[in-house]
């Protein structure tokens, strides 16, 4: 596996002032030529993602984006492996203490905030770096002498495929964004130029932002499950994101005493996100009615013990 400075270079790219965006893409292309694996990935993406973007109706594109991602799973996995082996500030990622990495991100953030000419897109790229940073932290913590967060992920039944998809989506959307931006600034040429770049750029950016949001939400949920005192901090996220509510809810259900779960198998229970059982019932209808009768005004998770779902929706 080649391992020359992808991370350090990509970080360097993002540290450049907005007015130097042209330089960013020159660097990107230089880097591209220095690493066959990444060069191939960029080239494939340009051919197979950017063009479909150009010919797909806008309202359909977001839904079909994932279809375009699938063939690149291997490339992105390779890139992620490269990233985890690269040097930042003279150290390999796994040698960097968490607070150093935070400091690095903080420096970038303050630079973005200081610069009144900062373009919104750079803020989004920053969000991307933060999301990726969270992912990399999971990789780092997964090293031999540290707690295995990925085990926790699996223990809490977090869908690792979703996690991969969000990382993949974030990366690909931003790679596409960078390629398109480079094309629009004339520092990179595609074999045939898309003629609607003004439309494509914000669209790809919004897709990247969506994947970032999903990725960050997942990371916050994992973090809260590993550090329970932080569950309170993610309650707004639980309220607005059913996937996160499900992840946290299932984790809390899995931690109920085994004899309780055996004794109440097949029954329906509602718990709050502090892990307190609020209502138990033999049917979902009874449980739902009782919650309404009690006028419960907090979010709760409902589960049928020993089952994967509480009801079916056939329409």
């Amino acid at each position: 596996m080649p391992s020359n400075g992808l991370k350090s270079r990509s970080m360097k790219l993002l540290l450049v002032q907005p007015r130097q965006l042209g330089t960013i893409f020159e660097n990107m292309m230089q880097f591209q030529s220095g690493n066959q694996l990444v060069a191939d990935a960029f080239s494939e993406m340009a051919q197979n993602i950017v063009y479909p973007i150009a010919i797909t109706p806008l309202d359909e594109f977001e839904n079909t984006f994932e279809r375009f991602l699938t063939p690149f799973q291997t490339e992105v996995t390779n890139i992620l492996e490269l990233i985890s082996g690269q040097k930042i500030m003279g150290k390999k990622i796994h040698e960097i203490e968490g607070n150093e990495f935070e400091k690095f991100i903080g420096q970038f953030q303050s630079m973005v905030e200081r610069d009144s000419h900062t373009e919104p897109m750079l803020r989004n790229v920053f969000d991307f770096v933060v999301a990726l940073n969270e992912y990399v932290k999971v990789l780092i913590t997964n090293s031999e002498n540290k707690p295995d967060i990925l085990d926790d992920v699996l223990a809490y039944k977090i869908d690792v495929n979703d996690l991969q998809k969000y990382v993949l989506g974030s990366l690909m959307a931003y790679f596409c964004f960078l390629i398109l931006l480079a094309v629009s600034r004339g520092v990179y040429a595609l074999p045939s130029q898309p003629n609607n770049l003004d439309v494509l750029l914000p669209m790809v950016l919004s897709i990247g932002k969506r994947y970032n949001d999903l990725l960050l939400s997942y990371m916050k949920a994992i973090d809260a499950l590993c550090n329970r005192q932080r569950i309170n901090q993610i309650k707004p996220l639980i309220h607005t994101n059913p996937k996160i509510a499900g992840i946290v809810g299932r984790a809390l259900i899995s931690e109920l005493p085994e004899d309780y779960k055996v004794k109440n198998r097949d029954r329906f229970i509602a718990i709050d996100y502090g892990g307190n059982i609020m209502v138990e019932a033999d049917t979902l209808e009874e449980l739902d009615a009782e919650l309404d009768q009690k006028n419960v005004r907090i979010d709760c998770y409902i589960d049928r013990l020993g089952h994967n779902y509480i009801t079916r929706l056939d329409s």
Partner: protein
Amino acid sequence: MPTKTLPYHGHSTLNLDIVINDIQKRISNVLIDTGFIHSIFGLKLPIEYSRYAKSLKTGPIKMVDGKSVDVQWIKAFIRGVQDYILVNQIPISIIFMTGNPIIGINFLKRYKICFDGPNNQTVLELDT
């Protein structure tokens, strides 16, 4: 008795006035779906509407394609239909999912509804 006549072209839609946690909202173009039958859920709304809810119930639900997905729902009230204010607000569980708004049998079964294909109209008799 109040009667509402809606256009019918293979399907009909109506406007609903609902109350979610004391917040009133007008929902337009709610599809009448007699195939939406569930013991609890009566109205399906886009996820964006969940922001009006102060508290939500979440649980895993098995969908038609066999997948289990986490969805959120809340007890709310239907206050009016097509500018007619109902004599009594009707309690209904709203399930928040992607897609267009759909009203199902839980609400419709309270009234008389007639799909008149030849005349391209749907007649809804309320508060009968």
